[in-house]
Every structure is written in structure tokens, then in C-alpha cells.
């Protein structure tokens, strides 16, 4: 069930929220909490009920190992068993065929690939629980009962696509959730954030995909990609990915607030970054934090000299790339970002303030960063390395430039109008405040600004406009049929 699906918006969410509020209203806080857990399991099972057992098995396995680790923190073999159990599960579902395929290429083996369906959200709930086990081993986890733990892992707003929540921020909230009064002001803020996220997904990301996707499909099919086509495709995808993922995260945070839980932010205007280091402090922040705390620092971080630091960075980014998917394009993408980060750190060491000192310097920094990121997204998006090379060649002008035909199309690019949408999207990502900035004043973490969320008529009108527009698009457009343009038999 996706957040922008009709069944979620018109059935699951109203019913779940209605029952939850009723239970809270009549003082059944613990029952409300358990109900969230059940609803989350239903939410997961809606996709494929067979994998509910896997999710529950993973929760039970990690809960009991976590408890044992918390009781005797020095139990290292148990920690290894716990982490290995999680990684074997993830490895089987996500990486087995990738591994076998590559092994068969390298060695004279003929291991048969298996038909394996990737369980939804497995990368997220596996990482979340590995972090829990590691911290339990360190004695840094708070005692919790099974229901609290289950809701921590399965809480539906963050279950299938993050943010990767950390037990330190979530467990205390779930622990006192049953006795806390429902915060209607936070719920209102959640509604607005949900509306913003839904708008980003439906009105921006999906629209951009209409232009970008055919270009990538054409490259995969072996077609030559020209200059404008290549740039339109790559920039559309760059923006689509941000609006899609950050929109989803906004919806997750908004939904969390509707159920009285504050989920951490995942994005902070990443395309405003003037360096790749800064980009990673703003993009998929919960994954960056996880990789830093549970991979980069255990590898030695920056404590063992510069060469070792760069090596650790590269390992972290390569594995971070592989986490996104079992394909060499993700590994190359991670490696490319590893190289970017190494260059960025080396540059900073030699010229600490050269680019950040002046507006011109920041502009140069932004341009280089953006270019590097767009190039890397091409690898991220393409299903094969040759297709990515084809698009990059097009962007570099190696395939020449083709002007739009009479209908405004250029090859696989349906219309040159894509550039208007790209310009509009760029304007939003560069000049509009992000969701975290919007709610900062209400959360008392920043001063009030013109855009700050409040219980005002302005925000009521904005939320209503965003919600009704996107709901109209979702529902009224799903049933339409495309117009029959010409007779085709």
C-alpha cells in the first residue's frame, strides 16, 4: 500500500486514525499502541501476506537477541549471531542472484539463479535492527516491552522506505506514548506535512518521470541519446528522485505526527549544497548517520591517518551504494561518491575556505557539486552501465545535438516542455524552504519566518489547496482513459 494509493488515503488511513483516536479518547493508551502495531502489520501484509511471517520473524529474533545482549552486554558471539542472522536474511533476498550471477561470470560455475521476491522494506528494517543490536551490546538501549519494540520496527509510516529510525529517538516516544495526551497541534502540523509530501510526489515527481523515464528506457534499448535529450533525462531524474523520496519522507513524518510520533527528518535541501560533503549531510540523512555510526566509525573513521580515512570512506560509500540495490550501477554510483568525498576532503585540507569565503566561490562550489551529483544519478538510475555511458555521452555532446521536431519532441524526450518543469523544480529546490525549516518554529528550534507553519488561516488554506489538488489528481485521473488520437487497429 503506497501513501498515494486510493486504498491508503481513503480506507486504511481514515479507519486506522479513527480507531486510534477513539482508543486514545477513552483512555486506552496501551490498546492504541498495540492497535498501531496491528495496523502496521496489516499495512505490510497488504503488499504480500507471505512476507508478514518474515517481518514478524525478524522482529522476534532481534527482540530476544537484543534483550539478551542488554542483559549481558559483553556477549559478543550473540551480537555476531544477531548481525549475521540479519545479513544472511538480507543477503539471500537481496543479493543472492547478484552474487551468483557474478560468480558464474568469474568462475566456471553454473549455479542456478533463484526466483526470489525482494520483501518490501527489508533493507530498512534490517539496518534499523542491526543498529539496535549493536547499541544493546554497548548497553545503550532502553528497556522496552515487545509491543513497543514491534511498533518501533513496523510503524507503518516508516516501514517500507524509511527514514531509518534509531531506537534512541523512537523508543522513548513509544515508551510514554500510552500515557501521553494526543497533541492536536502536532497532528495539524502532520496533516500539512503530509499534504506537502503528497504534492511533491504526485504533482512534481510523477510529472518529471513522464519526461525522464523514456530517455532512460531509450538508452537501455541501445538508442543514441543527444545533448538536450541527455540533459533533460538526467535533470528530470535528479529532481524526480528528490521530490519522490523527500515527498515520501515528508508524508512519513506527517503520518507519524498524526499518530503522536516524531519521525526524524531525512532531507534538508540537499541540492542547495555547495560541496559533496555537505550534500551527504543533507541527503538521506538517516542513512548517512547509520553508515557513519555503524560502518565508517567502526572501520576506524578518521582516527588512523589520512590514507586509512579515505579507504574507510570508499568502503562505506561502496557498501552504501550496494545497499541501494544489487546491481553494479549502484556500486559504481557509491564508488563515484566515494571518489567525490575523498577529493572534497583532500581539497578542504589544502584550501580550507577557498570556495566558501565568497558568494562567487559558493556558486562555483554549487555548480561543481550539482554537476557531480547529476552525473552520479545517471549511474544510479540506469539499469546497465552501458546505458549510463550512453546518456553521459549524450550529455557531453558526443552524440551531437538534435533540435526539437514540429511537436517539440527530441528523440525519446516527449516534449521540450520538460525544461520548463525542470526550471520550476530547480526553483523550488533552490529557493523554497524545506519541510524541516517550515516546522522549525513550531518545534521551537528556530525563529519564526514568513513560511513558518502555524495554526493560521494561511496554512489552513495552503494545506487544503495542496490536499484537494493532489487528491483530485490521484482519484479523478486514475479512472480516465487517454483520448483516442488516431485510428489504430
Amino acid at each position, binding site marked *: 500500500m503506497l501513501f498515494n494509493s486510493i486504498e491508503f488515503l481513503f480506507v486504511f488511513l481514515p479507519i486506522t486514525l479513527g480507531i486510534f483516536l477513539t482508543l486514545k479518547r477513552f483512555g486506552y493508551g496501551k490498546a492504541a499502541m498495540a492497535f498501531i502495531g496491528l495496523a502496521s502489520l496489516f499495512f505490510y501484509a497488504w503488499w504480500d501476506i507471505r512476507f508478514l511471517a518474515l517481518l514478524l520473524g525478524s522482529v522476534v529474533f532481534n527482540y530476544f537477541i537484543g534483550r539478551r545482549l542488554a542483559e549481558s552486554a559483553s556477549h559478543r558471539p550473540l551480537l555476531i549471531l544477531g548481525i549475521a542472522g540479519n545479513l544472511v536474511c538480507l543477503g539471500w533476498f537481496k543479493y543472492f542472484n547478484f552474487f551468483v550471477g557474478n560468480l558464474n561470470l568469474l568462475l566456471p560455475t553454473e549455479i542456478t539463479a533463484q526466483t526470489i521476491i525482494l520483501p518490501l522494506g527489508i533493507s530498512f528494517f534490517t539496518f534499523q535492527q542491526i543498529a539496535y543490536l549493536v547499541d544493546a551490546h554497548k548497553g545503550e538501549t532502553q528497556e522496552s516491552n515487545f509491543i513497543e519494540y514491534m511498533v518501533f520496527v513496523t510503524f507503518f509510516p516508516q516501514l517500507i522506505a524509511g527514514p531509518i529510525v534509531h531506537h534512541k529517538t523512537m523508543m522513548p516516544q513509544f515508551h510514554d506514548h500510552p500515557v501521553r495526551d494526543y497533541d492536536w497541534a502536532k497532528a495539524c502540523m502532520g496533516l500539512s506535512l503530509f499534504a506537502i509530501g503528497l504534492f511533491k510526489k504526485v504533482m512534481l515527481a510523477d510529472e518529471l518521470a513522464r519526461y525522464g523515464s523514456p530517455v532512460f528506457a531509450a538508452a537501455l534499448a541501445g538508442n543514441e541519446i543527444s545533448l538536450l535529450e541527455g540533459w533533460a533525462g538526467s535533470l528530470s531524474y535528479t529532481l524526480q528522485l528528490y521530490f519522490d523520496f523527500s515527498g515520501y519522507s515528508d508524508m512519513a513524518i506527517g503520518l507519524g505526527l498524526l499518530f503522536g510520533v516524531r519521525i526524524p527528518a531525512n532531507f534538508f535541501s540537499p541540492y542547495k549544497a555547495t560541496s559533496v560533503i555537505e550534500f551527504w549531510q543533507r541527503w538521506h540523512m538517516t542513512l548517512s548517520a547509520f553508515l557513519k555510526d555503524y560502518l565508517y566509525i567502526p572501520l576506524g573513521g578518521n582516527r588512523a591517518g589520512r590514507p586509512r580515512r579515505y579507504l574507510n570512506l570508499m568502503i562505506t560509500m561502496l557498501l552504501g551504494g550496494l545497499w541501494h540495490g544489487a546491481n553494479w550501477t549502484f556500486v559504481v554510483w557509491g564508488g563515484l561518491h566515494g571518489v567525490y568525498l575523498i577529493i572534497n576532503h583532500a581539497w578542504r585540507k589544502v584550501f580550507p575556505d577557498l570556495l566558501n569565503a565568497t558568494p562567487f566561490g559558493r556558486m562555483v562550489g554549487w555548480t561543481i557539486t550539482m554537476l557531480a551529483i547529476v552525473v552520479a544519478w545517471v549511474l544510479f538510475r540506469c539499469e546497465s552501465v552501458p546505458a549510463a555511458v550512453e546518456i553521459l555521452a549524450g550529455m557531453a555532446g558526443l552524440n551531437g545535438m538534435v533540435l526539437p521536431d514540429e511537436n517539440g519532441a527530441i528523440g525519446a524526450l516527449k516534449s521540450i516542455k520538460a525544461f520548463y518543469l525542470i526550471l520550476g523544480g530547480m526553483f523550488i529546490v533552490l529557493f523554497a524552504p524545506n519541510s524541516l525549516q517550515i516546522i522549525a518554529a513550531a518545534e521551537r528550534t528556530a525563529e519564526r519566518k514568513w513560511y513558518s507553519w502555524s495554526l493560521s488561516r494561511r496554512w*489552513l488554506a495552503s*494545506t*487544503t489547496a495542496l490536499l*484537494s489538488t493532489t487528491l483530485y489528481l490521484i482519484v479523478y485521473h486514475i*479512472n480516465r*482513459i487517454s*483520448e483516442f488520437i488516431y*485510428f*489504430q*487497429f
Partner: protein
Amino acid sequence: MKPKKYFSITLLVTLTIFVVPAIIVTVIDPFFVIHKKLSADIGFDGTDRYQNAGLINSFLADPAERFDTIILGTSMSQNFPVSAFKNEFGRNALKLTLAGGRARELGTIARKAIATGRVKRVVWEIFTSFADENPDATHKNSPLPLFLYNDTLADNWRYVFNNDVFENAFKIVRGKIIKKKKVKRSDLEGLYTWAYDDQFRKYSEKPNLAKLYRKVQASNLPIPASPPETMRPAFPNLQKNLFPILRENPNIEFMLYFPPISHYAYAVYGHKKFWRQMLMRKNLLEETQELKNVHVYGFDLNENISGSLQNYMDPNHYSPAVNADMAKAMVKYDRILTAQDWKSYTRALVRKVNSFAENFRPP
């Protein structure tokens, strides 16, 4: 503002804005799916995928409207003059054609129309999709909204909450109420008809004929007199989307016809495609020979029609005059084909197509 009030107003206003278009659709009902016309001067819309459902629900099903004949087919049947099928009892014909309609879609419309209990005669074009392999296929770009043609009333929400339908309803509201003008829509006689004079003219002009000549030269000709030995095709579209309907309704007269596409079209078809079509026709003739309620018509052998490109605007689409001639022939039971005719019919067709190709000269 108090948070609870903010929350309630947001949801209430959002839901109100959200349902207003649906209310407008329900009241205006531009395709008459839910109820009959609000005003007599609101005509019919050419969006056949929606309009056919409304024609069945609000017109065919209504005894007062006196319809007993339906016309099914693709864009090649859209130019039939419905009045030509008006019978001696004064009952009228209703066009339920579907541009680009696939066999399954036409079968679905037929079933829904027949379920009204008012259909006595069906004029049905049998074209290429009945020879296709997938009996469940719908049109790739413009599929029939199947939710309007099933028995599940609850599915009607997909009609009510629908951007296409709302746009049409809004046009009526704007025209009738705001601008106080008659909304440009069709009557039943003119519904779905098309006649692109310019395109008919251009098709037989020199530059196009030169292009067609090159295509004929590049084609694999002549077409052999009989199908390849190895060709034993099955026709699941006939089995699923036609024969059951013919057999289940012995009291309904079915007038099935093969549309007279141009000899040029057959010449550039390729052997395999040509013979697959012909074998589909053979299968249909054989399976229906025992059915007294079925008549099959073939119009391809008339060289004045199929052999003259002036009648066409592309390889398949013939002029409205051809439809009128066919209608006249059909009501007189002229040009009927039987299973016994198939061999001579296909031989004659192959000869005519090959001869057309051979004598086709550059302009």
C-alpha cells in the same frame, strides 16, 4: 485557531472541494450513464468508450426509445447510416461502435446491450482483432473502461470520480448555464460519424500514390493461392468473444460482416497475416453454418470499392458511401457468404489483390 478546529476545517473543506466535481458529474451525467438527459437539447458525445455505456443504460434499455438493432464494430462501422437499419416495425438502430475496438471490447459491449433484453438484431463488423491471439486484450492506449460494462453497480464511482467525465460535464455547465448556448454535440444519426474529405482526396493524389507504389513493389507478392501447409492457427478471440454470444442468443439475428478494406492493404499485409485473416473467416463460417440466426457478409470482392483507392483515406478506412451501400445490401441479405463459399471467395480475393498489385502503376 484551535487545533481541533483547524484539523476539522482542513478535512471538511478538502473533502468538499474533492466531491464537488463528482456531484456535478452525477447531476449533469454527460454520457447519460446514470440517468437520462436533463434537457432534450443536450446531444451525444463522440467519446465512444463512455458514450456507449450511456446509450445502453439510458436509451437501449428504455422501451419508450424503440431501439432493437445495434451496430458493433470499429471506426470502419462508424459511418453506417443508422436509419438504413430501421425495420418495418419502425424500430431504430443504435450505433455502439468503438474506434480501434478489440474483440473482447466489442464482445463486452454486445453482452451488456443484449442483457437489456431489447436487442433483436446485431450488425457486427469482424475485423483483424478477431484473429489476434490474446482474447483478453483491450486497446493499448485507449482501453474500454470495463467498469462501465459490468454488473457491479459499485464500480460506478470510477465514472463519477473521473476527470474525463468531469471535463465533459463542465463543458455542458459552461455552455448551457454560464454562456446560455447550445453545447455542440451530435444527434444519434450523426453520432461517431467521420468524413475527412481532405484526407480522402490526398490519399489518391500523385505523391501518395507514388509512395504506395513503392510499398507494393517492396511487398512479398504475389500472395499464394492457398495458406502455407504448416499454418494451423487457433482463434481464441472467436471462441471467447463471439461464438458464445451467437449461441446463447438464438432469438437475436446476427449480421456479421467482413469490412471491405482496400486491395492495396491486402497486398502489403504479408502472406502470413493475410492467410491468418482468411483462416479466421473460414473458422467463423464453419462454426456458424448451423446457426440459423447468423448471416455472414463479405464485401471485399467488389472491385469498384476495394480496387479503387479513391474510396479510401488510408489502407483500411473507406468512405461513408461504402457504408451506405453495405447497409442496403445487408438488409436485402445480399453478399452473404457460407462455409462452402470460402474457397472460391478467397481464391477470387487473392486473384483480385494480385492483379491489383500487378497493374498498380506509378502515377
